[in-house]
């Protein structure tokens, strides 16, 4: 019986050799691939055992790690708190990360490839490895004014301010906001408490409404319709209907102007007047005459429909909807029906017109720095599509100046010409009884734009059903513009 036993021994040897060969394959040949797989959490060096980089804005620290004597070697602090929370995000041991803490994690924890040389020298010199810093494009004063504008009035909404020529985000506020310090507390119980409180809130403060929420833009979308019209044979003097209300094609729905007023004094109104007075009937006519395809193409040129936009946080995809028949196209032309924009998208539309028709990709990171603040990488402005030729943009700016003249609300800045458009958008299950969303999109100075702003105040702010884009959203937008221009001078 010994021969089979010896053969069994041989088989055992072969099995062990096969196992060893396979382990060698896994741990030598495939090792690099497995190690560097983005899903392999081991490759992310433990956030708490090394100094994580700072998030800064114009010399001010928005997020930093300080040595602590607790179980974690470093504690994360956010000196600016809720006002900057949509930018910094949070770093929680229990609930992970948000906003830049998440999107720029590789840089902050030091594993980003651009910091490779630095890491290597840390290794050789035996220095404690530290993460890189993120310098944001944010103008801290603009951010504060934007946040205060919403917060002090108790509004739910968002403000985005962009530099039209580069797409740099100067301010991005969202209310209600949260305190990232609570979520980064060294005591997990504090984190749990804060997390529960925020998630149980009626309006989730952890949502960044500037980029994550899409809402009907109302009349601000008439800028898109006008841009399409001006490139398709219409001029500011083209005549459109001035009727108080019209029957939508193929249906019994009546569409009327705001408060049921006629568009000026005549039977017809010019496009210039229609935009200045924001006449729904005239734009419904435009929508019908232009057709869904041209409207859609124009919207896409502004970036609407892009789901891959990252600032580096992902921006929710704005949409124009299917526009499958004439009535829906007519309603879409005035920014209702299935049209949904993020405040960021609306700011991009304003910025694109301000920038002579060149849409720029919005971005939040200006520069990546090593731990010793040496620049490692700078963000270059990134052009997206062209929305219109420069002369059309000039004409549209001119029309927007007319719109601003007719817009009510306080905060007008003497000596600064603002080009703007307001929106008062119906929404919800029962649009007539739900307070409307108030929108405002603007840029200034009109002759040499330095800043483009979009403001969304959800559900009427403090004015309820009486709210309009002009009365509720415009004052905040103007104060943000004033602050941005003060800094630009």
């Amino acid at each position, binding site marked *: 019986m010994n021969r089979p*036993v010896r053969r069994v021994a041989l088989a055992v040897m072969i099995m062990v050799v096969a196992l060893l060969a396979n382990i060698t394959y896994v741990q030598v040949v495939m*090792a690099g691939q497995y190690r560097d797989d983005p899903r392999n959490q081991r490759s992310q060096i433990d956030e708490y055992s090394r100094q994580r980089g700072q998030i800064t804005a114009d010399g001010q620290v928005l997020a930093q790690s300080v040595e602590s004597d607790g179980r974690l070697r470093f504690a994360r602090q956010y000196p600016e708190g809720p006002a900057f929370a949509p930018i910094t995000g949070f770093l929680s041991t229990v609930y992970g990360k948000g906003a830049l803490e998440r999107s720029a994690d590789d840089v902050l924890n030091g594993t980003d490839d651009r910091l490779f040389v630095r890491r290597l020298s840390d290794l050789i010199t035996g220095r404690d490895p530290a993460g890189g810093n993120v310098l944001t494009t944010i103008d801290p004063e603009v951010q504060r004014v934007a946040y205060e504008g919403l917060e002090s009035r108790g509004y739910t909404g968002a403000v985005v301010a962009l530099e039209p020529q580069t797409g740099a985000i100067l301010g991005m506020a969202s209310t209600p906001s949260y305190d990232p310090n609570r979520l980064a507390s060294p005591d997990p119980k504090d984190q749990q408490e804060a997390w529960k409180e925020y998630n149980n809130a009626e309006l989730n403060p952890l949502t960044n409404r500037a980029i994550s929420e899409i809402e009907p833009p109302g009349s601000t979308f008439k800028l898109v319709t006008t841009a399409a019209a001006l490139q398709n044979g219409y001029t500011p003097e083209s005549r459109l209907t001035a009727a108080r209300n019209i029957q939508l094609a193929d249906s019994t729905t009546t569409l009327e102007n705001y408060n049921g007023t006629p568009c000026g004094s005549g039977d017809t109104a010019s496009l210039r007047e229609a935009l200045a007075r924001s006449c729904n009937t005239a734009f419904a006519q435009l929508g019908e005459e232009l057709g869904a395809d041209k409207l859609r193409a124009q919207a896409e040129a502004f970036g609407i429909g892009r789901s891959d936009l990252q600032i580096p946080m992902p921006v929710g995809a704005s949409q124009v909807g299917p526009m499958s028949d004439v009535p829906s196209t007519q309603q879409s032309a005035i920014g209702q029906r299935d049209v949904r924009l993020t405040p960021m998208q609306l700011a991009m539309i304003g910025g694109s017109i301000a920038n002579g028709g060149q849409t720029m990709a919005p971005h939040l990171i200006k520069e990546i720095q090593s731990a010793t603040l040496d620049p490692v990488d700078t963000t270059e402005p990134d052009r997206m599509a062209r929305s219109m030729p420069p002369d059309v943009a000039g004409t549209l700016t001119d029309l927007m100046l007319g719109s601003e003249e007719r817009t009510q609300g306080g905060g007008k800045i003497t000596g600064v010409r603002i080009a703007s458009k307001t929106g008062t958008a119906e929404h919800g299950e029962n649009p007539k009884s739900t307070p409307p969303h108030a929108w405002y999109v603007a840029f200034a100075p009109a002759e040499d734009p330095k800043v483009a702003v979009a403001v969304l105040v959800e559900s009427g702010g403090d004015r309820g059903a009486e709210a309009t884009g002009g009365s509720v959203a415009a004052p905040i937008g103007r104060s943000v513009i004033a602050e941005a221009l003060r800094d630009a001078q």
Partner: protein
Amino acid sequence: MARDSSAAASPTGRGIELVMLALAAVLTTGALVLVEANQEQSLTTDLLFVGLAYLVLFSLAHVAVRKLAPYADPLILPSVALLNGLGLVMIHRLDLAYAAQAELRGRPAPSELIGAQVTWTVAGLVLFAAVLFFVRDHRTLARYGYTAGFVGLVLLALPAVLPSSISEVNGARLWIRIPGGPGIQPGEFVKILLIIFFSAYLVQKRNLLSTAGRRFLGMELPRARDLAPLLAAWGLSVAIMVFQRDLGSSLLIFGLVLVLLYTATERISWMVIGLSAFAVGATIAYQLFGHVRVRVQIWLDPFEDYEGGGFQLAQALFGLGTGGVGGTGLGAGRPDLVPFAETDFIFASLGEELGLIGLAAIMLVYLVLITRGLRSALAVRDSYGKLLATGLSFSVALQIFVVIGGVTKLIPLTGLTLPFLSYGGSSLLANYALVAILLRISHVARAPLPQRPAQPRAPIAEASTELVQRPDPANRRGGTTPTPAGEPGPAPSGPGPAGPGPSGPGPSERGRSDHS
């Protein structure tokens, strides 16, 4: 331990065993120190006491071997001790990781696993000594062959019959849990009981199985009535395990019986039939059972269903890949990211922190254990002992192949524990019993034969033929080992004039391995 002059000439190897045990204690303590250092725990002299306690524990096992099986193989116990020690260190290391994770998440720390595992180790060593004490000759086990087979099948079926409140853990009904007490996975013991049964049965019937029968396709097929009990037990055990979705155990039993059949009959045709049957069975199982298809899909590409079924294997591969050749160092990796890191996936945990080098070392320790067992099978004089030792050794080999192969994506993953390394009381107890039987067989194989008047030494030319041909071990009385007539048994030990010097290995063993 020299009892008489003849024993003095056949070294027992107990000295070597003690030295090797001390080495295992040093390695285990060293591993523990590394874990503590890397986990920034305070390095105190307590660690030395832990190491000493470990050494004392296994020294007691050593004393038991010295008393009860003085001629047992000297390398088997140290191999087991080293594997068990490394397992304990790794489980303690995972305890630290789980506690840290819980603290970070603000949850209460999970109860430590190490305490239970140490208790099970002590219990395992007690069982080990008990088996050595009660089984003075492995051939007595053959008498209980059918009993063992019956008990094995009952134990196997029990969890499936019991209410799931008692038997179900993590969706698999493999347990017998006494309310308030520890749980037992009978599957681990069934393995040994079935080996005892199949060995006894095959030794009884091997002549019939290999001679009487019809020829078919150039192969001799045994008669149905000789084969029936065997096939019934085999089929039943595999069927129960398939029913319980315990693919690992069914694979283990299937392969084990196949190897025992082949060893007993020396007919390669059994392997051909068995492997064909396996291929057919595997294909049918793949077609019939969704969970089998899922296993195969995960094996082919664990990353395809990363968030779902592939997660565990993907995490294990990430861990192994991160470990690379040298490993991250004990206590410096993140083995806790792999689900079930302390049981089925402990090999991945070890691979992450010890690297390819560490894993190769562990594989070699297993290889020493297995080959020492097979060596005892070669050396022992009776057929039953040969089959039993082969079965026990091969069961360890097949089990580590299935587990390690599964964890490293060589074969589809099936749940089994890694002997002596994995967390789990049943596995430890059963494997200590297994090793005790192996040591008993090796003791019988290496012990000098009782002194008797010198027989004429068999001519060397005859020694190359088959050694053991015994019609029926059950007819034999246990205890003594009369050399059957005609068998060119080993030269009676003792300092014969032409015998090897006292410094050489035991003549009986030497004689075996040279000729057989």
